């Protein structure tokens, strides 16, 4: 039930992100200083032509929200791909080869965990220069440890099973065994980690943008929208509600999806 809801939410936001240029009622970047801070249509003082109202520069909130979906989805998917590649590679090396290699992998994971995540992400974005690409790369390079830990643990469980022994006996190469025998049998765990990681990446980007060191303005990141709106929130609380609820609902949807996948695929609770 919750799983289905999750899939619907994520699919809806993804569709919004893909179709953004065609479904936005206004240009998401066009300012109109005569139309500033108009409340949403369903509130007092709202206008039917601006469904979610306008922001402090008179930009249509709904259009910015739809474009913001692009940023969140892009961050989520791109981070999962980058961090997945790093984490799964490290985890497979450590879990499959074991011994010294595994010690090195564990050491790298321990070091990564001791680094204060948000601070380092803030510092990197600030020093390299804030842009969408930098944020994606930074998050991808920082958020791989859960992939590595889960891959390592599950590979260790799988590598002692009979079909792997059979593959060795049949003379398969190490690469073949890793990619054809081991990987397909742990992939359900990794899918669950991917949903979790996507949710974390989206929340982290929003937090970075909120602190002014994430996606640069005027890009309509939901976190940045909350940050820009917070000076006005005491008079018009809806300005932080609209992007905040969107962010919350999207992440909730991803988590619902992840939980349902875990139950269905029988992945470990560790994820």
């Amino acid at each position: 039930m919750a799983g289905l809801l999750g899939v619907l939410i994520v699919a809806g936001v993804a569709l919004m992100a893909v179709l953004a240029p065609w479904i936005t009622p206004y240009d998401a970047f066009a300012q109109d200083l005569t139309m500033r801070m108009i409340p949403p249509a369903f509130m007092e003082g709202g206008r039917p032509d601006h469904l979610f109202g306008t922001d402090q520069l008179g930009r249509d909130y709904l259009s910015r929200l739809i474009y913001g979906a692009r940023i969140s989805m892009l961050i989520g998917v791109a981070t999962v791909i980058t961090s997945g590649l790093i984490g799964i590679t490290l985890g497979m090396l450590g879990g499959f080869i074991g011994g010294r290699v595994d010690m090195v992998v564990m050491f790298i994971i321990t070091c990564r965990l001791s680094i204060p995540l948000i601070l380092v992400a803030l510092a990197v974005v600030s020093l390299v220069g804030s842009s969408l690409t930098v944020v994606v790369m930074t998050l991808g390079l920082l958020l791989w440890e859960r992939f590595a830990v889960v891959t390592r643990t599950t590979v260790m469980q799988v590598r002692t099973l009979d079909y792997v022994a059979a593959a060795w006996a049949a003379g398969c190469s190490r690469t073949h065994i890793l990619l054809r025998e081991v990987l397909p049998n742990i992939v359900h765990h990794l899918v669950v980690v991917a949903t979790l990681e996507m949710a974390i990446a989206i929340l982290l980007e929003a937090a970075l943008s909120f602190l002014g060191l994430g996606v640069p303005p005027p890009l309509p990141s939901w976190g940045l929208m909350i940050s820009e709106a917070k000076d006005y929130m005491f008079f018009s609380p809806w300005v932080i509600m609209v992007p905040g609820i969107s962010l919350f609902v999207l992440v909730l949807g991803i988590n619902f999806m992840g939980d349902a996948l875990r139950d269905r695929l029988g992945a470990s609770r560790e994820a």
Partner: protein
Amino acid sequence: MLIFIARRLLLAVLVTLTVLTASFALTRLSGDLAISIAGPQATSEDIEIIRKAYGLNRPVVVQFGDWVVSAATGDLGRSYLYHEPVARLIAARMPTTLTLGLCGLVVALGIALPLGILAAMREGSLMDRGIMMVAVVGQAMPTFWLGLLLVIIFGLKLGWLPISGADEWDGFVLPAFVLGFSAVPALMRLTRSGMVDALASDYIRTARAKGLSRAAIVLKHAARNAAMPVVAVAAVQLGFMLSGSVVIEGVFALHGVGYLAWESISKNDFPVVQAVVLFLAVIYIALTVLADMLNAFLDPRLRTQ
């Protein structure tokens, strides 16, 4: 046990050295630091002066060696912005962040332990599902947004608590709640699964057979066993909270270490940046060592690993 402690400490030292290198490398990411410090209007003579004044004209290896040696002796350098030793800046801000972190931890445990235990006692029931739903919802909540919402509700509409700053104790209530709430889902899941395992074990059946009351069984026997790993993880969570407090301190304008870090990152005050990163990492490393030792003390099986 001694060998275990020695190995664990050696690992901690190695990790610290790696983080020391990483935090140095981090601040060199921008390319030429002198240009970043000088700002956009600076002439090339200005940049040259800055490069000399801060010792940036020396080879990188020498600068790195200097940083390692002085960091090891507790000298974390001087802030470009405040013209004060970084160690003194951090020490002045630490009480705020530590208060926030510890209060947050109390909040987190205060919510996570009872709810986790309740959920496990009635596994699969409506209440269990309701409590687990709290965890899912909590995980999806952007902390900075929750902070702003609570400020609007309790600060503005109800007027019970201050909107920002922490001159009085009540300034810590909202930030500590928000920070603590962010750690609740993980701790609650752990408590619940630990309790479910504990309640299904033989010694609980024995306790039941002896005719002990339900409260005695749950609180005295099961909870004590289930809570141990939670306490260890809580130590690690405290480490995460201290570094996560940069967001909360930003929302509530609390002038702790997180705020200092954010400020120095925005203003290219890189000695402070590398020092705070190192400082928080060392706290985290110390907390994990502590947690591992606590676990090993409680469960001798772990010592041989």
